[in-house]
């Protein structure tokens, strides 16, 4: 069924009786050409691009719970391509371009809203660093505008410009950045993939791999054994757990990242703001809630909830940047599990086991990467070679000294 304004109008006058389930719930077949493990944003996007761009047939997405129940439904919905290192910037710009055409591609309203993102700076050295980053972005075809204090004031007059310790001197603005309705991304990709014949198998947990003589022939699941020519793993947060079943150890630690939403308020924050003197960022959802977050808790965790010290830290950042936030009441908060990689950058690569492919290590940059991650992973699964913009995201870069360390923190996952 194709969605359109006319369709909504027709359904409105006929009592909304014509809407049908958005995707099927098929029984697992005994064999597929390609299996994607993980029915989150990245897995569903991979299936969609395999079916639509690479003419993939006979594809299944395996999800242990319900689709979109993991980090695609637990993030702060921001899209941007404001990285400095070429390996990242080219990839995230590819992603932002795919976001821009996503709704037409999927025929689904994902509420892609390019409302702009500003990274504030508070000192001369930080300004220099942002100028450099802005130039790196422009060199990769992205947009970047350096704002002075007046430029920031014009957009956000309510920020704390009197802060003498961390004065707001200006910001690096990416007008094409913004937010997207996160759940709709999962549902839109699922619907588009399903319509091209992809089987989305929910409540189907992978319990083991069928690996013989260095080759992967399929998986064991809670809904029976399924064989496949190729298996792609896209389960960020649980990557180490799943890949351990294939006998692999990864350059990844799982950490918890918390996010917060206030009660619904009238429109006050038009875009996305990130604080440069503390870890705090904020935007306002279309429902009116202030959506904000900060650092990861900093210790290994598989619990989808965090602890209070980080709540305090985030709220202090918020109060320091925009004191008026203290009037807003917190409605809810939650935690998601991040694949924190050893250099802060992701992995999209083949493994040493033939027919087994890996996509993970997204740290807390996974949501904005969803379209490019899916597209690049589909490219790798279909053609056997990495996509142009994802060439650097190799599994062996740590042993070869080719880290993509945007922050320059070294192998300290809790600092990335």
């Amino acid at each position: 069924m194709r969605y359109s304004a006319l369709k909504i109008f027709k359904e409105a006058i006929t009592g909304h009786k014509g809407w049908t389930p958005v995707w099927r719930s098929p029984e697992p077949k005994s064999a597929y050409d390609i299996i994607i493990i993980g029915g989150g944003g990245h897995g569903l996007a991979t299936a969609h691009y395999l079916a639509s761009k690479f003419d993939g047939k006979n594809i299944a997405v395996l999800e242990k719970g319900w689709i979109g129940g993991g980090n695609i439904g637990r993030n702060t919905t921001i899209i941007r391509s404001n990285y400095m290192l070429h390996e990242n910037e080219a990839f995230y710009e590819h992603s932002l371009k795919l976001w821009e055409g996503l709704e037409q591609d999927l025929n689904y309203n994902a509420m892609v809203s390019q409302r702009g993102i500003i990274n504030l700076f508070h000192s001369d050295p930080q300004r220099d660093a942002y100028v450099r980053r802005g130039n790196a972005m422009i060199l990769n075809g992205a947009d970047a505008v350096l704002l002075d204090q007046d430029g920031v004031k014009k957009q956000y007059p309510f920020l704390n410009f009197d802060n003498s310790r961390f004065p707001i001197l200006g910001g690096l603005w990416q007008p094409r950045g913004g937010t997207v309705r996160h759940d709709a991304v999962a549902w839109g990709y699922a619907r588009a993939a399903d319509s091209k014949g992809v089987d989305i198998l929910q409540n189907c947990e992978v319990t083991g791999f069928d690996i013989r003589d260095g080759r992967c022939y399929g998986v064991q699941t809670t809904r029976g054994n399924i064989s496949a020519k190729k298996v792609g793993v896209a389960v960020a947060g649980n990557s180490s757990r799943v890949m351990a079943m294939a006998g692999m150890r990864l350059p990844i630690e799982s950490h918890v990242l918390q996010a917060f939403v206030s009660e619904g308020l009238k429109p006050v924050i038009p875009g996305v703001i990130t604080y440069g003197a503390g870890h705090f960022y904020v935007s306002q959802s279309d429902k009116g809630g202030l959506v904000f977050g900060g650092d990861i808790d900093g210790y290994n965790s598989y619990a989808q909830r965090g602890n209070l010290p980080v709540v305090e830290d985030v709220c202090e950042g918020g109060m320091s940047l925009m004191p008026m936030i203290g009037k807003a009441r917190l409605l809810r908060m939650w935690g998601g599990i991040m694949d924190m990689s050893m250099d802060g950058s992701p992995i999209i690569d083949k493994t040493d086991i033939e027919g087994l492919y890996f996509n993970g290590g997204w740290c807390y940059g996974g949501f904005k990467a969803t379209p490019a991650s899916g597209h690049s992973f589909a490219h790798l699964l279909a053609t056997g070679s990495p996509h142009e913009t994802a060439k650097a995201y190799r599994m062996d870069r740590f042993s070869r000294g080719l880290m993509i360390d945007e922050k320059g923190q070294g192998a300290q996952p809790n600092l990335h």
Partner: protein
Amino acid sequence: MIINHPLLGPRDASEFAYLGDAALMRRPDPKSETAADDFYRYQYLRENTPGEHRELWFHEQGDRSWLIVTRNISTHEITKVELATDVAGPAS
């Protein structure tokens, strides 16, 4: 989280700095023939499986001792806290 320090009693986790898996205490032999590969594994690869996890915490805002905390990383429950020096034994 409250960490029950063997010397100082219950202390808030925010007094500590976190390093990670206690396996990091077992540094590979730099003179070994496989040293390059050993150090790659030591530096970059992690077990990172759910459930019980032995990990290093540094009491930065306290007595500056290193602790080995056994914690269930699926529930955050701490079951055992030891002084790293007790576990490592005397320096050779």
